């Protein structure tokens, strides 16, 4: 078993402040209207602390870290 993390956006709550893309441009870009587009796939381990900061700092709390257990 190994842990994997994903960032997930609550599309209804998100109102496109764009802070997440500023904090984590490695994984998040903004579309032409300012809403985040996440790079697909699991979160690389070394970006976990930044991802946690994204979750905490989102002004409308629209982004979360989801943990999935994966059998290898």
């Amino acid at each position, binding site marked *: 078993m190994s842990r994997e993390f994903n960032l997930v956006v609550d*599309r209804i709550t*998100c109102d496109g402040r764009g802070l997440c893309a500023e904090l984590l441009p490695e994984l998040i870009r903004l579309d032409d209207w300012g809403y985040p587009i996440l790079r697909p796939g699991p979160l690389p381990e070394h970006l976990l602390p930044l991802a946690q900061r994204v979750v905490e700092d989102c002004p409308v709390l629209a982004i979360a870290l989801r943990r999935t257990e994966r059998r290898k």
Partner: protein
Amino acid sequence: MRLLDGPDRPAPLPNVGSGFIDALERAGLAGRGGAGFPTAVKWRAVAQRSRGDAVIVVNGAEGEPQSKKDRVLMSARPHLILDGAFIAARVLRARRIVLYIGERHEAALASMLRALSQRSEPEPALVTVAATPARYVAGAEAAAVHFINEGLATPTNLPPYPFERGVDGAPTLVQNVETLAHAALLARHGQAPGTVLVTLAGGVVRPGVIEVDSETTIGEALSRAGGMAESPKAVLLGGYFGSWVEPERALQLAIDHESMRRHGLGLGCGVIGVLPASRCPVCETAGIMRYLAGESSAQCGPCFFGLRALADACTRIADGRANPDDLTRLQRWTADVRGRGACRHPDGAVIFLSSALNLFASEFAQHQAHDLRRTA
């Protein structure tokens, strides 16, 4: 045995139990509301969670502008639909049934209420009625649950799915009226009719609803409606979330969901729309995109802003006043918007638009170059 031309009257329900879900599976019944989801899987998900508290939502919202088949069925066979609902209630151990019917479908609603008044207790006591706002997204499962619970016919985040926590927080089956009618015939006769209700729209001699065997081709279905009024430019399969297909290909396709899927297509809610060659496909596409943008429930940014931007760019192109990069923007935005709403509304819209950009590539390019002359 057909859906549309059988006698419609109340009769004692056939005695079915949980084994009926296996019968649904063997019959291969799939949802007729648009998604084509296997009915047995849906019933089983609710059955596993029901503690005698499940809810059945009879979905007659029919928000697809070109579709009429649910209304026609509700007017012609209300008892058959109610049979399906009460059978579902028995099999899934439900304590409540909600008739969820589009508020503008007045004849259909009246027909269902008249039929309900002819049923004997305790059946009617289970049933309440919700008249649904005439919005495109109102027929989506989560929107139906949201409306019944809170009066808002807008989609919600999933999960929880309706089968987990739906109406009153209970496991909920949201099922299209045609699907319920098929289930009722299966329960009564041991076999489903194997037919499909389709709405023929656009350039057809006699537009309207017909019932066809699933192996019928689209060409044969159109012939039954008197054929096409003039030579066709394209056929839109599956309504506004569907795809444009070239006529030669479309006419040979069998109507059943399986063979459609093998061709990478879907019949959705059963709309077959014929675009005559005299009409401009770019203008037609732009009009449908404007409609879909207006039907966004305005909850998710990529859908609300994205569909509006797509519709605006389409309209500029159609009107011959495109900005230099409008066509490339359409391509990029189509990819950007997909999968980024709480519901599938933006996905359906860009699937439709992608099919237009493919099939009408030369017309879009010509319009983009501000050349509005018609090509044959």
